[in-house]
């Protein structure tokens, strides 16, 4: 199959060139063959159909039905489905549990995001220096990301075990008392953030590593010729070049952390004394343990509003930069 830029002549009986030019979109070299454009018109629907149908069924429809549900007193057992207006929302705003679990979610997000960005950056910078054993470092830092949440919480429950767990054994060897890693209300959230950093930092590390590998070598060569030392190169070339990817990582991480559920549910079930329960777990508890689907939906939408505001404020500028 050969390609030529010139020899494309329009077969007879096809749409006039003006039409193809009018319908062509910017950024592509369309408008070369009118017939192909007409063909594209018809097949586009077929190609987009499976995705559009799946999205409609499993994303758009539940979004709408959930919104409707949030205005009813629907229960999981099927009883009651009357329209009750904003009653669920009024209840949500005056429910201290909503604010508390929302705060836990935000607190976890703050605690986890900073180390998840900083540690990932440090790891990537260390690995990128080109020391031997690349394979080993990448493997070590990324491997925990491959573990499923149940394995991660199993492992960490064992690490955090009072007295016989690894951490307390070490502390005892240093003459320090046992810590209530996941049993002390004041410590539990830090422990969960610690586990989360260990578990998921590998993904951000790979993002940073890929960005580092994308920095043009010539810049370093030029700087070296100009006499810039290692630190100078780090602060004048490497870090400024990582600004965009850092913005992306921060946003992705914030969005991911806001949706925390798995490791908290599996490790502490939201305890001790509800001190680590995130809002998604509250939604789950209300909906599937208390059977109040309508109220659970309303809480979901309050939470969604929070994420949406955050996304619109933070994501839009990054999109423009990129």
């Amino acid at each position, binding site marked *: *199959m*050969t*390609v030529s830029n010139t020899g*494309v002549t329009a077969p007879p009986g096809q749409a006039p060139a003006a039409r193809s030019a009018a319908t062509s979109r910017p950024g*592509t070299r*369309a408008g*070369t*063959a009118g017939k*192909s454009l007409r*063909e*594209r*018109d018809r*097949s*586009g629907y*077929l190609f*987009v159909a499976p*995705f559009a149908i*799946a*999205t409609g*069924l499993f*994303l*758009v429809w*539940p*979004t709408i039905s*959930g919104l409707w*549900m949030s205005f009813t007193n629907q229960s999981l057992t099927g009883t009651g489905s009357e329209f009750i207006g904003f009653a669920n929302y009024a209840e949500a705003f005056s429910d201290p549990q909503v604010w508390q679990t929302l705060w836990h979610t935000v607190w976890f997000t703050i605690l986890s995001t900073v180390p998840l960005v900083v540690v990932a950056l440090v790891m990537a910078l260390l*690995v*990128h220096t080109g*020391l031997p054993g690349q*394979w080993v*470092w990448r*493997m070590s830092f990324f*491997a*925990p990301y*491959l*573990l*499923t949440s*149940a*394995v991660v919480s*199993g492992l960490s429950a*064992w*690490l955090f075990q009072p007295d*016989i767990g*690894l951490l307390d054994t070490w502390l005892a060897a240093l003459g320090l008392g046992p810590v209530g890693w996941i049993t002390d209300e004041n410590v539990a959230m830090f422990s969960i953030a610690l586990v989360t950093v260990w578990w998921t930092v590998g993904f951000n590390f790979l*993002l940073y*590593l*890929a*960005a580092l590998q994308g920095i043009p070598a010539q810049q*370093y060569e030029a700087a*070296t010729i100009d006499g810039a030392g*290692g630190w100078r190169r780090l602060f004048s070339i*490497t870090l400024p070049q990582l600004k*965009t990817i850092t913005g992306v990582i921060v946003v992705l991480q914030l969005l991911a952390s*806001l949706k925390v559920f798995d490791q908290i549910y599996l490790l502490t079930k939201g305890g001790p004394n509800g001190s680590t329960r995130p809002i*998604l777990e509250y939604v789950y508890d209300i909906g*599937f343990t208390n059977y109040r*689907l309508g109220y659970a939906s309303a809480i*979901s*939408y309050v939470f969604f509003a929070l*994420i949406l505001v955050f996304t619109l404020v933070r994501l839009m500028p990054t999109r423009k930069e990129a």
Partner: protein
Amino acid sequence: MSVAELVAVRRARALQTRAENRALTKLTIGPSRWVRAATLTALVVLAALWLLPVVWGAITSFKHEAEAALPASWWPSMGWTLDAYQQVLSNSDLLIWMWNSLVVAVLVTILTVLISAMAAFAFSQTLFKGRGLLQWLTIAAIMMPGQILIVPLFRQMQALGLVDTFAGIVLPQIVAPVMVFILKRFFDAIPQELLDAARIDGAGSWRLFWTIVLPLSRSILVAVAIFVFIGAWNNFLWPFIVTTDPQFMTLPVGLSTVKNAYGVQYAQNMASAMIAALPLLLVFMLFQRRIVQGVATTGMGGQ
């Protein structure tokens, strides 16, 4: 230029970049022996910290249950044993859950990649009425956190009779608007002349899609597939909501029930954790290069 030639050129360019990068890494760090030693030390310490919990879990899994309940030790004083593995494999549905996870993850991966690639092709290479609106909707869908839909989605699955079925676990997971956009960006970069020439030779859209677009996008498709697979294999919340029958549970969900059932059986807990961890760790070792490249080529590298 033929398709084969084009692919060859792309490969060559990738190889060249890699060689350049290798030279670059020498420059990012000073030649000072001190700096190199400090960096290496930091790497060794960090890597050890990161591997330690897994190694310790592995050792615990080979201990006798009685010793696992004693204060942590690195070397089993009562000797090594496979008891925990035997117990777990014969007394729990671990192998069934693994099989379920594999089926679910494979189905999710195939369906997600296929429908996302098709949609990306439609957005990138075809024109149709409402394309702009659909693209806009897809972007909006990226911002929708699926987790908040568990309640209405569960209701929907009940109505459709899909609770405790593979379809119920799989279908809601195949909607991945982010992947559509990653793929679209890649398809946009395919030389338009190539596609136009094929069209003039009489190729329909299906032929274009299967014989030109997909083969040229192999690297990105593999990268997307790997990430979708990892995501589906590890997904907890949705399978947890939609399955109640142990026979349909996926590995993460099933494991979370074992933990409750056995309470303090640490050796067994660790044994099932090790068995559960093994498949993905093997996949990673086999595809390590691809995964790292994948991050770069999916455009998530942020250039």
